[in-house]
């Protein structure tokens, strides 16, 4: 299965993004709180990754020919589970177990718990280094699979990210596509106020990467960026910097200020799903 080409009869990407958001909200409701705003902001990127760009077999998540997806920001697990459910890798019924004892869907993503989860995140700063090793290994095997890795702007504070960026360029890892979710929010406040990382694209370009900066909630732009990253001919790693809006798709959540780890009241989940549906109809 080669992603976009064979999926022309499948639902449009916007429907996939809607499905991912809906799955995330339903999981959030199980806990009453969580990294909901991030799941909503990254849904478009995940929709394009899983239903346009990436190669995988839902019935065989460990298939060696798959593209790897490394979720470095493990707290985005709710978003990735939502995408894995949408992709048919995890049964939809399992979302009722999110974050519960004995569940395969813990609040922080871990490789040994969940099919389709390639690494244990949680401790931020690990994913890009693992990606470097996987890309080296894939090249060694003669595989044409790619490694996608997602992290967010706050994680750029970790020095290990920059070690890995230098290394990926040094080893000319053209099979690496890193996605940075710039939602300008981390635990203690706006990311740009915790430790300034701008101008990000210029910095990473200076490190030797092929860099694109896009509106991460514009599906056409996301798809175009994945296409450009995949078809770029330079022997260098690729980065997509995706500016996103926390809570995207649910206006009253978009407007919330304290949104890094969000508490949502019981009656509000239904309102959130309704708001999502209204956006879908529009």
């Amino acid at each position: 299965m080669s992603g976009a080409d064979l999926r022309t009869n499948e639902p449009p990407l916007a429907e996939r993004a809607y499905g991912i958001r809906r799955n995330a909200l339903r999981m959030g409701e199980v806990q009453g709180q969580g990294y909901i705003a991030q799941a909503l902001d990254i849904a478009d990127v995940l929709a394009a990754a899983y239903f346009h760009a990436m190669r995988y077999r839902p019935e065989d998540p460990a298939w060696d020919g798959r593209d790897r997806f490394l979720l470095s920001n493990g707290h985005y697990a709710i978003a990735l589970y939502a995408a894995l459910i949408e992709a048919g890798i995890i049964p939809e019924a399992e979302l009722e177990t999110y974050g519960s004892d004995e569940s395969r869907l813990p609040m922080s993503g871990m490789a040994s718990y969940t099919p389709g989860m390639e690494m244990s995140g949680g401790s931020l700063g690990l994913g890009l280094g693992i990606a470097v090793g996987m890309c080296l290994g894939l090249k060694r095997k003669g595989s044409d699979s790619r490694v996608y890795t997602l992290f967010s702007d706050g994680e750029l504070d970790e020095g290990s990210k920059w070690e890995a960026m230098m290394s990926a360029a040094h080893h000319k890892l053209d099979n690496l596509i890193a996605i940075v979710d710039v939602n300008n929010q981390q635990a203690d406040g706006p990311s740009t106020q915790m430790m300034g990382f701008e101008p990000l694209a210029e910095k990473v370009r200076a490190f030797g990467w092929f860099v694109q900066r896009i509106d991460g909630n514009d599906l056409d732009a996301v798809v175009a960026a994945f296409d450009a990253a995949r078809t770029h001919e330079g022997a260098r790693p690729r980065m997509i910097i995706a500016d996103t809006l926390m809570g995207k798709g649910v206006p009253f959540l978009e407007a919330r200020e304290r949104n890094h780890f969000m508490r949502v009241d019981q009656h509000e989940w239904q309102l959130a799903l309704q708001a999502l549906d209204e956006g879908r109809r529009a």
Partner: protein
Amino acid sequence: MTATTKTATMPSPNKPRLTTSAMIASIASEGQRTKPAPFGNALVEVARTRHDIVGMTADLGKYTDLHVFAKEFPDRYYQMGMAEQLLFAAASGIAAEGFTPFVTTYAVFAARRAYDFIHQTIAEEDRNVKIACALPGLTSGYGPSHQAAEDLALFRAMPNMTIIDPCDAHEIEQVVPAMANHQGPVYMRLLRGQVPLVLDEYGYKFELGKAKLLRDGADVLFVSSGLLTMRALEAAQRLEADRIQAAVLHVPTIKPLDTQTIVDACRKPGRLVVVAENHTVIGGLGEAVAAALMRARVHPAFQQIGLPDEFLAAGALPTLHDRYGISTEAICAAVKSWR
């Protein structure tokens, strides 16, 4: 809080002052038989038939004997630059793709700087990564920046990690293929350069997870690992002159610990048990053995030889080993004082 500074002492006219506090110092005593780069050479031999093996280092290939592997298999060697966090995360990634990386750096940089990266990307994910680290314990005169007095304590606390502290070149040659054949992460304390050759004379054979009695004796039982097994053997020989018969139980695998063999040896009545290790007395072999004995309700007279709970000085290795009680002379003196 006041800062303390060390005060200089002038050389004694009776004792020459050694003048090197170099990063790399030989652990071989004068005239001792040695072998060059046993780790690098053994790895080359294993890698001839094991094509999944690759080598990775963080700017310390030459100082961990991995350069021997690099020379033989240049296309299987990854120089990752002086970036230990990246080194171990990348090792996890390449292991995830089915390769068996042998990863080298200094013990301080693995145990201290990159701890979380090893913990999360290698141990927690149970990746098949082999870590071999030079300058374990007190094998550098460079000061605390390079003295990994606590590496065993840190790695013992890490689930899934197998820990090996080999004694000499003869043992390292056997440990390397055992590491390659073991499924899962392994940490080995690496002795590099001209490495002493001792255990061949004892007809010794390394087995992962097994403690081995190298010599018997009725008065004292040394339980030791790594470099200190070599010292314990020398001490046992010298103590014969004082009519003290010392046994030496070598425990190269620190984790999982061969509790049964250790407890059985310590059960023998009338022997002073002395655990000797090239490591702080906190959290290493000594405390592991003490706990195993307590759990088994075996209570022999018990002493520890190891590094003190302090930041160690810079200086020449023989000076430091004397000062901190892990030279053969210091061990003999301690044992006599305890009897």
